């Protein structure tokens, strides 16, 4: 990408075009405009809601119904906290109002944070603070979780103590992106809370147009299928890109998720811009005696394994299991059913996929194959080089609020892979194009020689 600033491909849409054919100006960078962001926090004064008697007294008849039933009740927990914490108490009140009115009572956004960080805090203000003054401000701190969400009770208690001191005492363990979320802080409490966190060795995660907190499955820590060290890679990437995590500088958010194998227990293919999914490229290792064990225990290998193999490449020949590894697509099914008998090969690594996201604005995307197989080894140089080339590209060609998956579709996957220095590969597509609208990049002028 360096020195290629001026490349222009054929056929690249210069505007962003959405699903309805509406053309978006490419200089639409409102969300990078700090001025604009600032005023979002100020919100709009909403008209007052009537204040019902039972709410004044924190009677919560509607929420109370959620204390029934076998599943653990967040209401019960909330109520206990409400006895101790005014913020929790007012949250309870406001939530009851929402249940009554079938409507939320939070103002729009709010730009707050800790000094020097652009991410990690989500500002939140009540639109009914006259009723619920203690949730007038009710920000969240996204505390960067540990790789694989492993904790000691000591560490958890430490986090609890900090949050007990500075906030509502309410948390999400964990947020959808993976953070340990402190739910409900005053603006004033943010810096002291952050200070206590860092003292104890914790830091904030991401929010806004930055790299978000990477997360991973428990991988080699507790899973036999892990094809690379998801925990270490996640830690390493998180540490390497602290600046990208904390100081929003991208055109939009960027999420990494690391899954140890194609089972994808962190839903990386659907929920991250860059998914690293472990796989292997040699033969599945078979332990025939364990096959026999499964058979003896009554497993119906034919119906439960052989018939379910998407490539029909397994057979059972007098209790010997055979796999035609050339046809196998490493889907994991046979290994999942017989983990004791089958193991990934020894030549392990990962498939790198790009572009997953939720639907706003152009429809949801699943990540797609960028590198069919990459060896994943410390210090992850090949991976980081690739990521940096991608970020450079995105920085140059991305439009504000355009995730990388959308950017690639706009620019064309072919142009994208070329620009970041990869070869186009048939593994990148489920099938080649079926339309004849090809942007051939060269043509001959009269007098020129015929091409070879």
């Amino acid at each position: 990408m360096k020195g290629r600033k001026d490349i222009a491909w054929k056929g690249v849409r210069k505007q962003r075009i959405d699903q309805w054919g509406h053309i978006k100006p490419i200089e639409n960078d409102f969300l990078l405009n700090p001025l604009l962001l600032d005023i979002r926090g100020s919100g709009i004064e909403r008209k007052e809601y009537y204040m019902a008697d039972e709410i004044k007294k924190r009677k919560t008849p509607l929420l109370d119904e959620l204390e029934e039933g076998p599943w653990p009740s967040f209401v019960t927990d909330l109520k206990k906290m409400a006895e101790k914490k005014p913020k929790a108490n007012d949250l309870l009140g406001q939530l009851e109002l929402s249940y009554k009115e079938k409507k939320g009572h939070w103002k729009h956004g709010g730009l707050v944070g800790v000094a020097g960080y652009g991410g990690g805090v989500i500002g939140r203000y009540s639109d009914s603070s006259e009723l619920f003054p203690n949730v007038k401000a009710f920000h969240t701190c996204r505390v960067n979780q540990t790789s694989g969400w492993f904790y000691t009770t000591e560490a958890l208690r430490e986090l609890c103590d900090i949050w007990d001191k500075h906030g509502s005492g309410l948390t999400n363990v964990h947020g959808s992106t993976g953070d340990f979320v402190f739910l409900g802080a005053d603006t004033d409490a943010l810096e002291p809370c952050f200070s206590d966190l860092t003292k104890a060795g914790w830091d904030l995660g991401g929010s806004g147009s930055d790299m978000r907190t990477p997360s991973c499955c428990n991988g080699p820590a507790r899973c036999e299928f892990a094809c690379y060290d998801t925990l270490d890679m996640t830690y390493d990437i998180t540490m390497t890109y602290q600046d990208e995590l904390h100081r929003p500088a991208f055109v939009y958010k960027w999420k990494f998720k690391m899954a140890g194998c194609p089972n994808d227990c962190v839903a990386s293919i659907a929920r991250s811009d860059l998914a690293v999914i472990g796989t292997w490229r040699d033969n599945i290792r078979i332990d025939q005696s364990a096959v026999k064990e499964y058979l003896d225990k009554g497993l119906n290998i034919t119906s439960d394994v052989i018939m379910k193999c998407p490539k029909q490449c397994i057979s059972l020949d007098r209790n010997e299991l055979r796999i035609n590894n050339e046809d196998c697509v490493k889907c994991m099914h046979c290994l999942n059913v017989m983990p004791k008998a089958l193991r990934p090969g020894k030549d392990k690594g990962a498939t790198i996929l790009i572009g997953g996201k939720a639907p706003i604005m152009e429809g949801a995307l699943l990540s797609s194959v960028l590198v069919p197989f990459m060896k994943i080894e410390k210090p992850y140089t090949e991976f980081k080089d690739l990521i940096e080339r991608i970020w450079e590209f995105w920085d140059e060609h991305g439009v504000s609020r355009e995730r990388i998956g959308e950017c690639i579709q706009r620019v064309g996957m072919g142009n994208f892979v070329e620009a970041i220095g990869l070869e186009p590969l048939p593994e990148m597509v489920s099938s080649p194009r079926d339309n004849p609208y090809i942007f051939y990049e060269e043509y001959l002028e009269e007098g020129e020689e015929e091409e070879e």
Partner: protein
Amino acid sequence: MTTQALERKTDMGPPHYERFLHPIIKENYGKWRYHETLKPGVLVHVSETGARIYTVRAGSPRLVSVDFIRMICDLADKYCDGYLRFTSRNNIEFLLADKENIEPLIKGLNLKGLPVGGTNNAISNIVHTQGWVHCHSAATDASGLVKSMMDELYDYFTTMKLPHKLRIAVACCLNMCGAVHCSDIAILGIHRRPPKIDHNALKNVCEVPTTVSSCPTAAIRPATVEGIQSVEVDEDKCMYCGNCFTVCPAMPLADSLNDGVSIWVGGKVSNARTEPMFTKLAIPYLPNNPPRWPEVTSAVKNIVEVYAKHARRYERVGEWINRIGWPRFFKQAGLEFTKYHIDDFKHAGTTYKRSTQLTQ
């Protein structure tokens, strides 16, 4: 690790995970050989060395207080040498060295009202989002919906009697923080009324061109309203995505009367057998009926039961529907097929049935 100012530490990142690994895990890191499910919610992983680590998985509401966390820490201290983790679906996993501690731990958990399960052919915890508890965008609550549904589906969490894993997710608006786009069953909060514009506020907090261009369907036009430079919305073109509200606070969509929930089915993310799939629309609208959303819980339960009855072993919801075809799914689940089910978005044409392969 860099330090920005003298008195403040920044960019130190999370603590190193090794600090938090159970000694057995540390010793057998990367050496796990296989696992077995001893009973619902209880796994054992066996290492090449023969070492074993036991896991007990308990459900959690995710929205929990520090006291709740301290309570589970007490249990982990007692039975797990102080080691535990959380899963990608917000369950709590207790990691045990000693098999003997499994039953006492389970008893302890049950005493505190926490169910053990979620493994294998079960419904695991519901991935969900903020809802009315914390988000400005919410069209429904998340925690309450989840509680209501898990109460109904409790039995499927604590047993493993389904044809295969069943993964449910909730998102309270189209931003889909719960990533409901690839779940076996998804519940999605929806608005159904175009934004009501607060023209006075708009002139102060939003830029007109930005607001106009935020709309995917070009429903927003600049307009002068009662002398104020503002915008207007062509209601015929609005599909309530909320993107304008994200960009301009003066265009709220939340509406007590019209907000509600839609139900989606058949997504998955694993690559096992079939490639990952998106969820597809099953029920376009059910009302918000807090505190227990009876219409939603019974609709979800019905789908689970139809799946449980008809799917074959190792078939995820989407795989089952693909085998029997959508027409039969709608019939078996007793759902109405409407024009809303027919895609009219970007790739709409690719979802039309372009073949005569039909069952009758």
